[in-house]
């Protein structure tokens, strides 16, 4: 069976005054119908740019310089603007961190929902309203009939994000890209929104790409993970495997930096990855992680590691040293 | 010093300047005009202030390229027989001096009031802003008429002509300070919520130190932008006042009073007396405004984080 989405060798560049800057460098992944993928990384790793590239919304001076994005057999990277608009917001929906990016503060929820729907479907306002009500119920908004005539500022942050999700659902998309959908929300609300997304993916058979920095959230929601670092995917595979047995030293570091219930107490230290992610303008030679890596070898400073399959598992890792036995965890005290 | 120069050379500021031909051309013209006007005593062919060298017989000679023109007077002469080119150069110097002086005064009053108003907030803020509103509802003209009338009555016309430059600076400066006060207040309101201000308060600094040492430097970008527009406005105001006879006397002409002095003679065919100073005024104000537009784009914090 062909995949719902296949991103292959995607490269996004930004034309800046000191030359081109490669924000995304050879990113590849696939997503099947109803599958949930987590794109994990720090700010600047290129995860949001990847999301925008899929719906062809890279704004100038950025452009897709290489690779293809196959969605249902069509290459989105080369689709003309007209046709792309038919897919964006219709068969692929996007949810942003800040709900107010999607919601227009001066229009009622009902108007916004109906107009979105009527832009993509040839239906009357009445029919559109019926669909809007149905979707609002799906995201557990109480008394949706009254909500339709309310303005975004009348809702709390969590409710707004629910409405944004309802809007994303309007056109029954096959794929939802959620960019940090819960980062601005409180933990208790965050958990509710994540539950909702999980439930909707199952009931509507939707694909989900969850872009986030939070490994905990990803492990709760997704089936697959791709970890990004400095514009590349350094490790990808089933969530289960990556969480329990990370191979790339960066993934390992991220997981170890999370608090360990076994080692808590006053003044206790956390495991840290030394240094910071390099800026895209000053990437180190070879593997871009090597200055922060604790298992690096001579080759890491010279050659860029290719992504390669791990024997016996459905996962890939881009590291020269990954299969070397990792040393016992070192307990560092000093940051770089 | 060398470090700053290097930093400047690699800055976004210079880069965007060089990439914008309009800004570069405007800057070159502005520089040229200012150089010409301030080196007037050195390079002008005649001294229009020297009544001994003026001959009324040379009055209203058209520009050199016209039939009755005289190559001795490139742009012709005015009704008193002064060389127009020299007079314009001197007049422009007066205009620029008044413009810059007025803006410095405006900025001084406006920044001070804006800072206090924005930082203190509450009743003081409300009071100062209402004062600004009242000031704004007097047009520059009204302020000028009022002050100059009072001054002329009190000290006589002779004294007024003598004191015209500082007087105009004060008039235009007083009339326009609310622009600065409002701009500064708006950015103070934005800045004072930022955590670096709280950090300064945690250290224990007093309000004056926080206002002037911490907040003020961060409000200067918009001040710089409106300053360009304000210089252009001040030069225009000066010209308008002089045109109405409330500004510079004919013996010490500015661009505005030159335009005024030639205006009566346009219909008798001596168009050049008004045209050349007018053209220069338009060019001068235009290039400043163009530079101001560019500066606003560059200093826009949404486009450039510095």
């Amino acid at each position, binding site marked *: 069976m062909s995949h719902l989405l296949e991103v292959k060798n995607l490269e996004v560049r930004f034309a800046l005054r000191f030359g081109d800057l490669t924000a995304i460098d050879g990113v590849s992944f696939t997503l099947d119908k109803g599958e949930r993928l987590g794109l994990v990384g*720090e*700010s600047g790793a290129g995860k949001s740019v990847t999301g925008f590239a899929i719906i062809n919304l890279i704004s100038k001076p950025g452009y897709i310089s290489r690779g293809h994005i196959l969605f249902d057999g069509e290459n989105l990277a080369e689709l003309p603007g007209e046709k792309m608009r038919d897919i964006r917001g219709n068969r692929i929906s996007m949810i942003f961190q800040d709900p107010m990016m999607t919601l227009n503060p001066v229009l009622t929820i009902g108007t916004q929902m109906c107009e979105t729907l009527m832009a993509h479907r040839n239906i009357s306002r009445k029919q559109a309203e019926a669909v809007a009500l149905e979707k609002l119920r799906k995201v557990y908004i109480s008394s949706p009939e009254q909500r339709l005539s309310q303005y975004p500022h009348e809702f*709390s*942050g*969590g409710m707004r994000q629910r409405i944004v999700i309802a809007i994303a659902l309007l056109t029954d998309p096959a794929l939802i890209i959620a960019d940090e959908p819960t980062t601005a929300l*409180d*933990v*208790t*609300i*965050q*958990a*509710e929104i*994540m*539950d909702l997304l999980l439930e909707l993916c199952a009931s509507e058979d939707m694909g989900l790409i969850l872009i986030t*920095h*939070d*490994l*905990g*959230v990803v*492990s*709760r929601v997704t089936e697959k993970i791709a970890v990004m670092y400095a514009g590349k995917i350094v490790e990808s595979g089933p969530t289960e495997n990556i*969480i*329990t047995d990370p191979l790339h030293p960066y993934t390992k*570091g*991220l997981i170890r*930096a999370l*608090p360990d*219930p076994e080692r*808590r*107490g*006053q*003044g*206790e*230290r*956390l*495991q*840290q*990855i030394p240094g*910071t*992610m390099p800026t895209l303008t000053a990437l180190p030679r070879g593997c871009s992680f090597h200055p922060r890596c604790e298992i690096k070898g001579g080759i890491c400073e010279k050659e860029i590691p290719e992504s390669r399959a791990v024997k016996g598992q459905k996962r890939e890792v881009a590291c020269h040293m990954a299969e070397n036995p990792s040393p016992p965890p070192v307990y560092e*005290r*000093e*940051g770089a | 010093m060398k470090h700053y120069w290097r930093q400047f050379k690699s800055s976004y500021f210079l880069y965007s300047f060089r990439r914008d031909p309009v800004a570069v051309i405007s800057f070159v013209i502005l520089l040229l005009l200012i150089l010409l006007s301030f080196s007037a005593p050195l390079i002008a062919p005649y001294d229009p202030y020297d009544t001994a060298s003026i001959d009324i017989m040379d009055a209203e000679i058209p520009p050199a390229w016209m039939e009755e023109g005289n190559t001795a007077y490139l742009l012709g002469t005015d009704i008193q027989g002064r060389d127009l080119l020299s007079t314009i150069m001197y007049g422009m110097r007066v205009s620029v001096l008044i413009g810059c002086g007025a803006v410095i005064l405006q900025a001084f009053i406006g920044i001070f009031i804006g800072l206090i108003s924005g930082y203190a907030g509450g009743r003081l803020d409300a009071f100062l802003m209402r004062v600004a509103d009242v000031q704004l509802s007097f047009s520059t003209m009204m302020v000028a008429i009022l002050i100059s009338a009072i001054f002329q009555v009190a000290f006589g016309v002779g004294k007024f002509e003598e004191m015209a430059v500082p007087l105009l600076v004060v008039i235009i400066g007083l009339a326009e300070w609310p622009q600065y006060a409002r701009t500064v207040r708006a950015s103070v309101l934005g800045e004072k919520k*930022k*955590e*670096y201000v*709280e*950090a*300064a*308060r*945690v*250290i*224990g*600094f*007093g309000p004056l130190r926080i206002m002037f040492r*911490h907040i003020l*430097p*961060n409000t200067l970008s918009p001040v710089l932008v409106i300053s360009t527009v304000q210089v252009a406005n001040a030069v225009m105001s000066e010209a308008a006042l002089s045109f109405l006879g409330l500004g510079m006397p004919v013996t010490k002409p500015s661009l505005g009073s030159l335009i005024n002095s030639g205006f009566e003679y346009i219909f008798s065919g001596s168009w050049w007396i008004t045209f050349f100073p007018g053209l220069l005024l338009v060019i001068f104000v235009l290039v400043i405004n163009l530079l101001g537009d560019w500066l606003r784009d560059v200093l826009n914090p949404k486009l450039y*984080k*510095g």
Partner: protein
Amino acid sequence: MNSRQTEKILSVRNLVKHFDISGGFLEQLAFEKGKIIRRHTVVKALNNVSFSIAPGEIFSVVGESGCGKSTLARTAIGLYPPDSGEVFFGGERIDHLSPRQMLPFRARMQMIFQDPYASLNPRMTVRQILEEPVFFHRPGISRAEAGDRVAAVMEQVGVDPQWAGRYPHEFSGGQRQRISIARALMVDPEFIVADEPISALDVSIQAQILNLLMEAREKRGLTYMIITHDLSVVAHISSRVAVMYLGSLCELSPADQMFDHPRHPYTRALLSAIPRLGSKKKHIRLTGEVPTPIRLPSGCVFHGRCPYADARCKTEIPLPLSPEPGIITACHGLEEGRIPLSPE
């Protein structure tokens, strides 16, 4: 911990702080039932909060947005005057002092802020930022001595002292937060309030900054009060944790007690909502609208979302009680024994 034996470094008693956000006179006017009325909009940020912190402690205040934790931090350190209640520092009452009387305390307590991009003055070099507090609090100090201190503190927080001449925008977020910590350390404080010190940072940097804070604490014998919305990371290094909801203290207990046996229903919900690696455990679902601190619910502020709420919770404000030494909870259900003590 016996409060009579240990001298408290900071204690607050019955702290109340309300903000009037109704704006100018015209903005206060509202039209209701055919009449124009003047209405004040008041945010009730802190409602009767009391606790004390012993020297050497790492005291965390946890809560969601709008619960008043940042207001608590700023009131405790004297940035806001409390509406009522008392703040004691080192045994002396400080909440009613004039700025001049407050000065000696300013050097003893410092603050670290959330946003490393807003907390450093963009127009000052790192050296100026760090020197300024020293010159202010120790006027006699020589330029060379101050320079040495700047270098030493920069070294300690892991920023190369050679970069002192640079401006904040030339540093990454993590480095800026280090500089922010350095500024707080410059005056040799005893007590540091950190308002969300890591929440604006990337995951791999968060651990670095927390470790730096712990190290500084060990070297200098500091006491911390850490404000956070993140129960999972910060609370792990704390000695005691206070959970706040809508301006009130729900629960205050030693960190391991809090994690192993959360008592207050809100604490339980909060703990269960933390996304944990690999755990698919169902979290406690809270129902009901999230109230705002402008219209506080009657009775217990949590009753609208609490699964155990009954009639008493809707009318009567629960008082902070101590079921065991060192633990404080404010919940009618716990007091009456309606809520089972250890869940699961």
